[in-house]
């Protein structure tokens, strides 16, 4: 074996890659194809499912029936992405340029939420945002807010939860972009009589854009698939496409509709990722994860 590889060194990388790629083909690609097929099934879990192209009518039917939830997911994901961007940029800027010896500590705090259970974090916000919780309780008792004011079970709570959960995915790529910038460019701009605002507009911001795009994608994608925040912090009026997919699959056993909805969601997202990767590559995206 080793002697054979010595004669054919070109085979070694393929051999090293093969197990991982085979696994991903079997349990990532093949299930996706299976899901496409399931979207063209008819039947029930008890009687078994039958495949037919004629069942393609499931798609327009599902889209029509759940268009509200689809649009709501897009809206909430978009708003959450903007909220994350606005909140994350100053923080990433501080970590990159102003943190000094605290840089590692700050970066660690950014990812610290990932070391606590995801569900417990969402439930913790339920505690904080509760009708008489830490935040609203005192404001109500001094009369700043009316007694019936609430955040829980509103779109604001759901968007807040989504933004919180994916916030680190925005901070990290922007930080990586900012950190890469050659600060001499900013000094050069200042030598050429640009004020701090103008230097920021003309140098720092444009060079940070790859990080901004990567972060936006890394927040928008998981936000589109969310159902946990909508379920725990929202109400019936805030149901997202993720909630529909989850309940169609796991409660109603309506596999064809659920698979059709999942497939449309996946196709849309993959198209976005491909376009992004074609234009900008995957480096910045991976920095948010690795």
């Amino acid at each position: 074996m080793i002697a054979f590889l010595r004669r054919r060194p070109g085979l070694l990388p393929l051999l090293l890659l093969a197990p991982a790629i085979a696994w991903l083909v079997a349990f990532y690609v093949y299930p996706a194809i299976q899901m496409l097929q399931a979207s063209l099934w008819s039947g029930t879990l008890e009687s078994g499912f039958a495949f037919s192209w004629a069942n393609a009518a499931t798609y327009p039917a599902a889209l029509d029936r759940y268009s509200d939830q689809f649009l709501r997911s897009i809206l909430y994901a978009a708003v959450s992405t903007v909220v994350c961007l606005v909140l994350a940029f100053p923080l990433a800027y501080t970590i990159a340029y102003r943190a000094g010896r605290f840089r590692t500590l700050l970066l660690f705090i950014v990812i610290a939420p990932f070391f606590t259970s995801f569900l417990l974090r969402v439930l913790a916000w339920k505690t904080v945002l509760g009708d008489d919780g830490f935040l609203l309780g005192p404001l109500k008792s001094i009369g700043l807010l009316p007694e019936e004011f609430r955040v829980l079970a509103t779109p604001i709570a759901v968007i807040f939860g989504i933004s919180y959960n994916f916030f680190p995915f925005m901070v990290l790529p922007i930080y990586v972009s900012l950190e890469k910038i050659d600060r001499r460019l900013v000094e050069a701009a200042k030598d050429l009589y640009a004020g701090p605002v103008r230097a920021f507009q003309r140098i720092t911001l444009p060079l940070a854009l790859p990080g901004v795009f990567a972060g936006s994608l890394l927040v928008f994608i998981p936000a589109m698939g969310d159902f946990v925040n909508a379920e725990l912090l929202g109400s019936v009026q805030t149901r997202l496409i993720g909630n529909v997919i989850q309940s169609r699959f796991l409660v109603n056993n309506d596999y064809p509709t659920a698979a059709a909805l999942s497939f449309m969601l996946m196709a849309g997202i993959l198209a976005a990722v491909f376009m992004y990767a074609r234009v900008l590559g995957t480096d910045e995206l991976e920095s948010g994860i690795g």
Partner: protein
Amino acid sequence: MLRWLGRNALRAYTGLALVYLLLPIFIVALFSFNDPVGKTNYTWVGFTLSHWANLFAIPGLLDSVVVSLRIAFISTLAATTLGTLAALALVRYQFRGRPATSLFIFLPLATPEIILGASLLTLFVAIGQPPFFPLNEFTILIAHITFNISYVIVTVRARLSGFDRRLEEASADLGADGWQTFWRVTFPLILPGIAAASLLAFSLSIDDFVITNFTAGRTTTFPMFVWGSARVGVPPQVNAIGTIFFVVAVSAVAIGSFLQRRRA
């Protein structure tokens, strides 16, 4: 004046952002010491240590933690092995189709968890219908290995990119064969990257809810236990376990970076 204002506004903002990031972690820990009235644990009543003293008094909680730990260990081991081999291939060798392979490996990370879970569910349903493939710890394991492989590859590759090939050449010059060079030179150098990747894989597995939700059947992992009890009220013991997980993970990261700093 403007600059002073800008600098201090940024500083104040950073402080607020840190509070925002850490507040839920603090709340989780705090409410493990709460003495709630009734089943829901959302308002502060009084301090008690009794939930920490009776950590596993809740039926099913200990079992769920054991299941989660077992799945995390096995999936980490499998994903780290497969992922490290693939990362080595991607960093060390130039071959045709390398950019396409990188993109392919990235795709599972860019797919929402709900889609990964749902497509695996349809796979298991389609394999044996009817009655369909039984969902249990085994199917959860397959799901966790799947999402962890990509995370491991990306992490190990990031740590490997600064790797100095001349160290291996030096080893070969000194008469070591390929195998010796790998175990004496390459492996010790990439070990911190592998350790970081397995730590990430372990914490992702133990905390995964969405994909597990689709592939678990009746098997209850710790996050599944939390989800199930969220409807009726999460017992403070669950907060205590979450706090333990947090402390253990942070300690592991701290020890890891301390060891790495001492070596460097």
